[in-house]
C-alpha cells in the first residue's frame, strides 16, 4: 500500500506522528495502520539464546516485561522513561526507534514557525540553529535508539522487495531530516537482542527537565559483558546529542579486562563525553547538557556495574544537578 500511495505514512501508536501532523510539520495523503497486523508484539527468547521483540510491542509492555529484567534491563529502563504512562501504553518500540528528530525551531505550530522564519526541515532553506550549516541539526530524541546501539541489536525491516536485517547503528543517518536508512515503504517488524555466552549487564540514564512527559535532552546507554568479575567488552551510545545515536564504545576500551572501581569509572566517563556536541536547539542550556554528559555516563556505567549510580566522583562534583 505504501509503495502505491505516494505521500502516505505508516501509523502504529501515533504518539509522535499525530502531534507532528497537527502542527503541520509534514503532510500525508493517507495513514496506513500497522495495528491490524497479527503477532507484531510478540517477545520471544531470553538473554542466553537471544531475544526477539516484535516492533509492535508497546513501551509499557516492554518496561515491565520479565524478559528485560536482567541483561537487557537498559531497554526496559529506556521504555519506562519515555514520555508519560499514556504515551507508553500507545507507543511502540518500532515507533520510538523512528521518532522524528526534534528541534526547538521545528516542533512548533505553523504560526510560530512562520513568525520566526521557517527552517530547512520544513518550508525554509536554512538551519536556524547553525545558520551557515548546509545540513539540518534536529536531535535524535529516541530513548530506545541508543540502547539498541549499545546492546548491538539487529533490526529487521520488511518492504516490498523483501526482508533485510541490519545493525541498529545502521538504521540511522547523521542528518536531522534524512535520518534513517529505512526505505519509505519498509516497516520495522522486529528487533533482535543478541545471545551471549558471557554475563551481560546494561543500563540507561536519561536527562530531562521533568521526570515525566519530556523527551531526552541527553541519554546514556551502556552494555557490559563480564568474565569472572572483569569486564570483557563494553559498548555505549549517547542519545539526544546529535541527529543519530552517538557511539562511545571506543572510549570505553580502558574498561576491558578490568575490575571497575570508582576511580576507573570516573576516569573513563570523564573522557567518554568527547563525542557529545549538543547544540542550542533543545530544552535547557547546551553547555550544561555537555557538562552533564560525563556525569550521566558515570551514572550509567555504575548502574551497569551494580554500584550505587549517584555515589560516583563526577556526581559528587556537580552536587545538586537540578537545572538552574
Amino acid at each position, binding site marked *: 500500500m505504501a509503495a502505491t500511495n505516494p505521500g502516505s505514512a505508516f501509523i502504529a501508536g*501515533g*504518539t509522535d506522528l499525530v502531534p507532528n501532523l*497537527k502542527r503541520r510539520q509534514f503532510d500525508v495523503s493517507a*495513514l496506513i495502520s500497522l495495528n*491490524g497486523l497479527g503477532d507484531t508484539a510478540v517477545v520471544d527468547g531470553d538473554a542466553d539464546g537471544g531475544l526477539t521483540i516484535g516492533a509492535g510491542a508497546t513501551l509499557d509492555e516492554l518496561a515491565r516485561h520479565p524478559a528485560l529484567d536482567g541483561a537487557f534491563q537498559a531497554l526496559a529502563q529506556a521504555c519506562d522513561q519515555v514520555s*508519560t*504512562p*499514556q504515551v507508553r501504553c*500507545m507507543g511502540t518500540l518500532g515507533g520510538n526507534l523512528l521518532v522524528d528528530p526534534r528541534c526547538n525551531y521545528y516542533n512548533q505550530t505553523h504560526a510560530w514557525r512562520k513568525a520566526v522564519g521557517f527552517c530547512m526541515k520544513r518550508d525554509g532553506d536554512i538551519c536556524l540553529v547553525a545558520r551557515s550549516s548546509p545540513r539540518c541539526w534536529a536531535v535524535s530524541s529516541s530513548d530506545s535508539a541508543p540502547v539498541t546501539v549499545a546492546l548491538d541489536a539487529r533490526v529487521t525491516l520488511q518492504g516490498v522487495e523483501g526482508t533485510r536485517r541490519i545493525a541498529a547503528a545502521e538504521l540511522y543517518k547523521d542528518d536531522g531530516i534524512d535520518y534513517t536508512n529505512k526505505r519509505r515503504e519498509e516497516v520495522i517488524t522486529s528487533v533482535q537482542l543478541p545471545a551471549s555466552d558471557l554475563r551481560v549487564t546494561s543500563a540507561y540514564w536519561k536527562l530531562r527537565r521533568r521526570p515525566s512527559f519530556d523527551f531526552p535532552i541527553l541519554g546514556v546507554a551502556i552494555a557490559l559483558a563480564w568474565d569472572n568479575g572483569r569486564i570483557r567488552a563494553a559498548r555505549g551510545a549517547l542519545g539526544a546529542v546529535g541527529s543519530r545515536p552517538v557511539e562511545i564504545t571506543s572510549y570505553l576500551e580502558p574498561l576491558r579486562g578490568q575490575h571497575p572501581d570508582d576511580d576507573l569509572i570516573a576516569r573513563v566517563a570523564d573522557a567518554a563525553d568527547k563525542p557529545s556536541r549538543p547544540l542550542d536547539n533543545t530544552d535547557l542550556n547546551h553547555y550544561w547538557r555537555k557538562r552533564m554528559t560525563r556525569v550521566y555516563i558515570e551514572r550509567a556505567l555504575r548502574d551497569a556495574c551494580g554500584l550505587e549510580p549517584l555515589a560516583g566522583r563526577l556526581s559528587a562534583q556537580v552536587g545538586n544537578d537540578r537545572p538552574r
Partner: protein
Amino acid sequence: MSIADKVAVRLRVNGEDMAVMVLPYKTLLEVLREDLGLTGTKHGCELGECSTCGVLVDGKPYLSCLAMPLDLEGRDIVTVEGMARGSDPHPLQVAFAELGAAQCGYCTPAMLLTAMALLDRNPNPSRQAIKDALSGVLCRCTGYVKIFEAVELAASRGAAGG
C-alpha cells in the same frame, strides 16, 4: 471532504456497541465528543502533552486526542461516563467529591480514569505508585495533593474492580 467520504466505525464504548459514520481523519476525542455526545472527555492540548483527554482502552490509559477510531474497532473503550454503576458514582468519584480533589475540574475525568486503571492493577498503591501512574495528567490548578489523597481514600475503601 463531504459526507460521502465518511466511513462506518464500530466502537464499543462503556460496554455498549455503537456504529457511527465519521470522517476517517477524526480523532477518538472528536468522535466521542462530537458524534457520540460524550463530552465528559475533555479537550486539552490536542498534542499528547496534557493527557486531559485520557480514556481507557482495554483497561489502559490512552490519549483520545491522538487515537484514530478506525484502529480501535473491537477494543473496549471506557470514558468517565462509564465509571458510575447506574446512579451510584464510582468510589473514586465519591472520594474526589468528599476531599475536594477537583478545583476547576478540567483534568478530573482523566485523573479518575487513570486512577481507576491503577487500582485495577494495584489495589493498594503507595503514594509514589499513585504519583507515577498519574504523572501523565497535568492539573494546572496544581491541586495534586488532594487528588493523591482521594485515590488513597478510595483504595482504602476497596475501590478496585468497582
